[in-house]
């Protein structure tokens, strides 16, 4: 009996480790952002609507906002757009866009054609701001608190699930729904 106990224990241990691995494998493609819980990177970038005007993070302090990184070259962003329009219609939290390494005219055409869910869009031609936010693929969406702290990050097209489970509870001050 005793001689089987050790191998059995090892087997159970291995099974548990593998189970955890399998359970979490879909998340492996999503890299945890070191920005969560830290102040959002400051920005002051030309606005897409009026390049003479700047979109500045300092002006956004005091209320929640979503920071959505997109580009007209990004196919997944087109798929996401409908969801962003719905979020905009809900009117709970404004969306600030970061037009990442994009052509301004194409971006303006995109918004006129598909509708504009953004309160304002900052243009990042050099791609430096996206790097400051640790963006590695569009679309990515960050939730920033009134204190200017990054609270949540969603990689890939925003889903209704993420909206209702992660973003809405935080923004409306209700306890965040985990799991």
């Amino acid at each position, binding site marked *: 009996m005793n001689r089987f106990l050790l191998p059995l224990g090892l087997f159970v241990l291995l099974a548990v480790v593998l189970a955890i691995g399998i359970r979490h494998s879909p998340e492996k493609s999503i890299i945890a952002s070191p920005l969560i819980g830290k102040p959002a990177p400051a920005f002051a970038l030309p606005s897409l609507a009026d390049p003479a005007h700047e979109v500045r993070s300092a002006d956004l302090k005091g209320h929640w906002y979503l920071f959505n990184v997109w580009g007209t070259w990004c196919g997944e962003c087109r798929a996401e757009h409908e969801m962003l329009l719905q979020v905009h219609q809900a009117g709970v939290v404004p969306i600030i866009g970061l037009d990442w*390494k994009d052509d301004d005219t194409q971006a303006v055409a995109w918004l006129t054609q598909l509708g504009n869910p953004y309160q304002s869009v900052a243009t990042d031609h050099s791609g*430096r701001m996206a*790097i400051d936010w640790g963006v590695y693929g569009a679309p990515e969406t960050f939730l920033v608190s009134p204190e200017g702290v990054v609270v949540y990050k969603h990689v890939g097209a925003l889903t209704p699930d993420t909206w209702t489970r992660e973003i809405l509870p935080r923004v409306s001050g209700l306890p965040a729904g985990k799991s």
Partner: protein
Amino acid sequence: MKRLGARTLLLSAWLSLAATYTAWAVDPTELPDPKLQARYVALTHELRCMQCQNEALADSPVDLAADLRREVRDQLLAGKSDDDIRAWMSARYGDFILFRPRYSLRNAWLWGAPAILLLIGALVCWRVVRTRMTLLPADHEPLEEDGQS
């Protein structure tokens, strides 16, 4: 003879293609100072391309990798140390961007695991050998006695 000629031709064509491949290397950056250049090459090989994930910055043709290489170059030219640049990168992309993970409490198990596994193996080995050593004479003695009687 004719076939050999064709084969040689094919081989030389393939070899010359392979030779041009190095000339097409993803990253044409040349820094003025050979010392900086060496550090640049080392850094871009130990930082991960976040989009392709299993490639280093140096080897990736992706846009973001080019942007991150530009950051490495600019910061080297601005006199930043290798550690500064690594810290700058991991502040944005996490430790995941470092192909050579840093020592930290969170990944201590990663560094400790091989040593612990070796220790477990050694313990098991020692126990097995010890039980065998006590079993062997016990197995033999009754046999010899049986043979004698």
